[in-house]
């Protein structure tokens, strides 16, 4: 069942086209990673889902309604990013009280336990927290609100590795306790992969891929073997990257366009290896022909 549907969604800010004709559908009760390079349009898309921005053209429907300025959508959605701010007069404890007042599914006890675990003093003010503590508190705020759509925009920014691992588990556990749709953006896909169910890849304002994680990973494979043998194959399919090391060529190719079975490849002496999701993302969003080394030569 789709809770978010976009049809030809476009958003421009003056001359800058942030999103171009995005069409996608997001199911209920899934953890989805929204991945993309900086400036790809992830935040814009999420802001439209949250009802903060209006699409320039096209439509977006959340719970079958237009989310812009919609109180019903707002009651079932929460948007957590590093700019979440509260009044100067509230201590963290009072912020939690305020959240409990607004969100009907609020879990105050859970919040206290999580913040206690993270070592955050509840009498402090939001503005006094360090970057990592701020990220932790914001994430806790988002988790205990138990909204049907929880959008986390780079939630682990600033957190140390230990607490990051802990809170990935926390997201998963909360998801199991109260299933909802999580939309998480992050630049650390390799850490997050284990909890994600689907990946939505955005590049240059368009959706390049939207698939369950396993399917996503199988999109590209890495082939390595003798250069001449590989050359024939490479001419028939789309090559994303190519490298020659000590006589051995390795290339990343589109698996769907490869019409040769694995058995065949092995007999030819070509090794097939799978890629991680973040590697797939990297290759899919790489600008053809651009290379950082070239700048320094």
């Amino acid at each position: 069942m789709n809770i978010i549907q976009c049809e030809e969604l476009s958003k421009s800010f003056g001359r800058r086209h942030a999103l171009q004709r995005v069409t996608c559908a997001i199911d209920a009760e899934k953890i989805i990673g929204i991945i993309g390079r900086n400036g790809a349009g992830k935040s814009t898309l999420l802001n439209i889902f949250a009802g903060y921005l209006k699409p320039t053209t096209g439509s977006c429907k959340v719970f079958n309604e237009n989310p812009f300025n919609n109180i019903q959508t707002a009651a079932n959605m929460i948007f957590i990013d590093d700019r979440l701010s509260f009044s100067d007069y509230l201590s963290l404890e009072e912020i939690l009280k305020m959240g409990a007042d607004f969100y009907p599914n609020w879990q105050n006890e859970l919040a206290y336990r999580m913040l206690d675990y993270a070592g955050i003093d509840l009498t402090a003010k939001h503005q006094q927290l360090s970057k990592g503590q701020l990220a932790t508190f914001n994430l806790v705020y988002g988790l205990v609100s138990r909204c049907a759509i929880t959008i986390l925009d780079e939630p682990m920014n600033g957190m140390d590795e230990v607490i990051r691992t802990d809170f990935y588990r926390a997201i998963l556990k909360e998801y199991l306790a109260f299933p909802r749709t999580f939309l998480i953006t992050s630049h650390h896909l390799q850490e997050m992969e284990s909890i994600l169910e689907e990946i939505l890849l955005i590049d240059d304002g368009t959706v390049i891929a939207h698939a369950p994680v396993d399917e996503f990973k199988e999109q590209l494979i890495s082939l390595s073997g003798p250069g001449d043998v590989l050359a024939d194959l490479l001419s028939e399919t789309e090559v994303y990257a190519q490298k020659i090391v000590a006589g051995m060529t390795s290339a990343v190719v589109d698996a769907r366009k490869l019409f040769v079975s694995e058995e065949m490849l092995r007999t030819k002496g070509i090794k097939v290896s799978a890629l991680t999701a973040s590697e797939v993302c990297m290759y899919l969003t790489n600008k053809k022909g651009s290379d950082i080394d070239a700048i320094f030569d």
Partner: protein
Amino acid sequence: MQSLTNISLKTIVKKQVKWKAKLNISALSSLIILLILFGALTSSSGSGSYGSGSGNLDVHFSIYSLDIFLIISAIWAFIVALLFTTKAYRIDDLSVVSSRTSSAIANILVMIIYSFIAVILMISTYYLQVLGVLLVEKKSLVIDHLFISPSVFILCFSSICLFGAIGLLFGTSFKGPVAIKLFLSTFILFSFIYIFMAPNSINLGSLMMLPNLMISVLYLLVATLCFSLTIWIANKSEVSRK
């Protein structure tokens, strides 16, 4: 799938008003400080003075009235309303369940509540000032009216409300869609030009001749118009946390 929560606009507005009124209370404390400041400044000369004479007697009257306090409160209401629409307060609204409409209505209700309290603060400051004058100058004190009539109270309330409404409208318009920003800028420009070119055409005198209640009703009508425009513009505005 979990069932979605259904919340009415009224509930959310009530909650937002409760929290906003509580958290922005420092605006009222700053009003008290301003009123005390101006009350102390004008305690020797009063709100105005005039002289009269007959024979070999020259009389100088210093009048203590509500004027200066009303002017201060009205300007305060304008500035506070303007501040309510600035970025810091707007993005605080996004941290809880809210829509542009609910936030605008909540701001309006809070401004009305604050205007009412402001009138009471204004009157308290006035009486404190009169007490001060009484204790210092027992002999030459003339009391014309001591009780503030309800019509004057309502007039003060509607004046402060009006300025608050104009402040909210200005603030909301400047964050609104481009078309509205443009319209507002040209409107302000033209009104300034008009005021300076033909000041006589603005007939404030006839306004003052009307009875107090009629002026109040007029002010409240204009304030309601401003509030409605504020909500209309807010509905069209986008927000961003950046």
